[in-house]
């Protein structure tokens, strides 16, 4: 990469920092309003109890558990994308890793809050710590998610160290307020060989560690279901299915976030159609694997027609949940794979459309795991019914809005693309760090 292109890369990477244009504030206001709506709904629920939701004696897991699995799954894609690209030394990773890592942290923070919302009484969460039972999947979940959260923050921070030093020099007076923060967080980075070695070792450890951590989180989430007595959940395939589903929806989320930030921050010269093609290939590969796992699960159940699992299978294929099931299978699984896999024009748009369908479909899939499984009685009762209320919908919308809000606020303070990683990929390069010219607007 020549000096001019690198200078442009640096300028684009730090362009959002300190920028408070009208679009930024409009986005913050709109997203904050949605988050505030979600918070109001939660306070309403805290005051009146869980009866304001659609949860009931027969279906005691609903939107909140679905969202927990969904958002934590989304975070997995970000972490895995960044880790795998680093470990395979993919040359095209530099503009993507920061966005992927930040998406992972934002989605994880949202997903990890949901079990507390589902508790109804948040203070009861302390009982998990005070009276922890080693044999309880809830305790496994708390430990796994807690460890994964810390690891995600570390994985986000370590590559930031050199970029903060670069940003501080590049932005000059624009970072008067941020400069002391950058100085502290950059730990005196000078790019010396010993510092490079220390950083490379730390990032290498994290890139390797984050993968089994993320696998463990989703496996434990799956075991929350699989170790119960409900036949439709008590399946050995649940853990791999959850892990794969998390990667699938997570990569889709990364594609959407990358596309959005690319457009908003004018990153088109560096995040090109090639990146979206490669991410689409990854999406298709994960999607095909997910189709295989699903066929394996339903074929096994359907061939045997065991008494305990047949009612749920019937409800999914031809019964009350059939519209949702076939919407997911065709609209959320097959169709996006076709859109993403077929060659043609508009790779970015096609990747985005496919990813949006995948995200919607995977949320629906989590719904189809949780609610029919709960509704099917394990004693001779009628089937349960679940109708979410405005409280659950508002909290879901608020938490979904929190992710882009956190991202745009984060990139207001930190570089959106990794400069140091670009140098690693392109070869050691030490030009004088240019001062950033006043903004030129983004847009496609």
């Amino acid at each position, binding site marked *: 990469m020549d000096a001019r292109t690198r200078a442009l890369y640096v300028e684009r990477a730090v362009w959002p920092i300190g920028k408070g244009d009208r679009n930024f504030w409009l986005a913050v206001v709109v997203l904050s309003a949605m988050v505030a709506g979600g918070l109001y709904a939660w306070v309403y629920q805290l005051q009146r109890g869980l009866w304001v939701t659609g949860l009931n004696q027969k279906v005691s897991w609903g939107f909140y558990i679905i969202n927990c699995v969904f958002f934590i799954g989304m975070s997995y894609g970000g972490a895995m994308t960044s880790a795998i690209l680093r470990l395979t030394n993919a040359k095209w990773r530099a503009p993507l890793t920061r966005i992927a890592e930040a998406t992972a942290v934002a989605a994880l923070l949202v997903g990890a809050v949901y079990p507390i919302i589902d508790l109804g009484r948040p203070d009861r969460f302390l009982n998990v710590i005070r009276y922890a039972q080693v044999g309880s999947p809830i305790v496994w979940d708390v430990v796994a998610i807690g460890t994964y959260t810390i690891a995600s923050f570390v994985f986000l921070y370590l590559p930031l160290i050199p970029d903060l030093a670069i940003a501080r020099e590049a932005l000059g007076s624009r970072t008067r307020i941020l400069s002391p923060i950058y100085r502290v967080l950059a730990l*005196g980075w000078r790019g010396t060989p010993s510092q490079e070695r220390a950083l490379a070792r730390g990032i290498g450890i994290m890139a390797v560690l984050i993968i089994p951590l993320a696998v463990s989180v989703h496996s434990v989430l799956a075991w929350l279901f699989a170790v119960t007595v409900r036949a439709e959940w008590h399946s050995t395939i649940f853990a791999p299915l959850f892990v794969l589903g998390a990667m699938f929806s997570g990569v889709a989320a990364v594609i959407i976030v990358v596309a959005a930030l690319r457009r908003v921050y004018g990153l088109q010269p560096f995040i090109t159609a090639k990146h979206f093609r490669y991410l689409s290939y990854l999406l298709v590969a994960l999607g095909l694997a997910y189709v295989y796992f699903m066929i394996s699960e339903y074929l096994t159940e359907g061939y045997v027609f065991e008494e305990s699992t047949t009612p749920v299978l019937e409800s999914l294929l031809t019964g009350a949940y059939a519209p949702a099931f076939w919407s997911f299978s065709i609209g959320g699984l097959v169709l996006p794979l076709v859109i993403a896999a077929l060659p043609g024009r508009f790779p970015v748009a096609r990747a985005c459309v496919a990813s949006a369908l995948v995200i919607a479909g995977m949320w629906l899939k989590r719904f189809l795991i949780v609610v029919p499984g709960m509704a099917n009685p394990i004693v001779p009762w009628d089937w349960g019914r679940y109708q979410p209320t405005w409280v659950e919908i508002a909290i879901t919308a608020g938490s979904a809005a929190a992710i882009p809000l956190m991202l745009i606020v984060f990139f207001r303070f930190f570089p959106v693309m990794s400069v140091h990683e670009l140098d690693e990929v392109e070869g050691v390069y030490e030009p004088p760090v240019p001062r950033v010219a006043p903004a030129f607007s983004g847009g496609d």
Partner: protein
Amino acid sequence: MTLMLTFGNVALADHLKAICDVQVTASAKLEQGYVLGVRLHTSDGRPVNEATVRFYDKVELFGDREMYIGSSITDGQGNTSLRYLPARLGTHELVVRSSSKDHFTAAEGRVTFEATVAAPAYRSEPAPLAAFSALVPYGVGAVVISVWALLAFALFGTARGVLGGARDHAQKKGDLA
């Protein structure tokens, strides 16, 4: 005593009060516990035969309750018995009841005795792989602590390396100056 009443040209007999005497004796074989003997009779000594007698042991389970331990039927002499091996040692209060039969009233008898013989404590069978399961928490705990240690090393080791490099760099610049 029989009281005859006339009501609409039909004679009715008053109910005779039955009395329930209970006695507890140790069984000939110690491991069989105790024999609860009952004699059901009227106040003038006449036996109450073929009456069902129920035996209860008073226990505490969220309050005072009577635990049903068995029943038997009195013979021609008004006698019956039940073998009982208590579940615990110590003082037991037994309640024996007979329901009303023919022209005999219901009766209740109580007795308290000190049990020096009891059934052996129930020992559940060990769960499959119990020995392995006991070690799993330690294994998992070791893995979790190792992961945390690796995380701490990645973060603080890197920070230490970067800060050390900055220090060396500043020193070199100072030396050159």
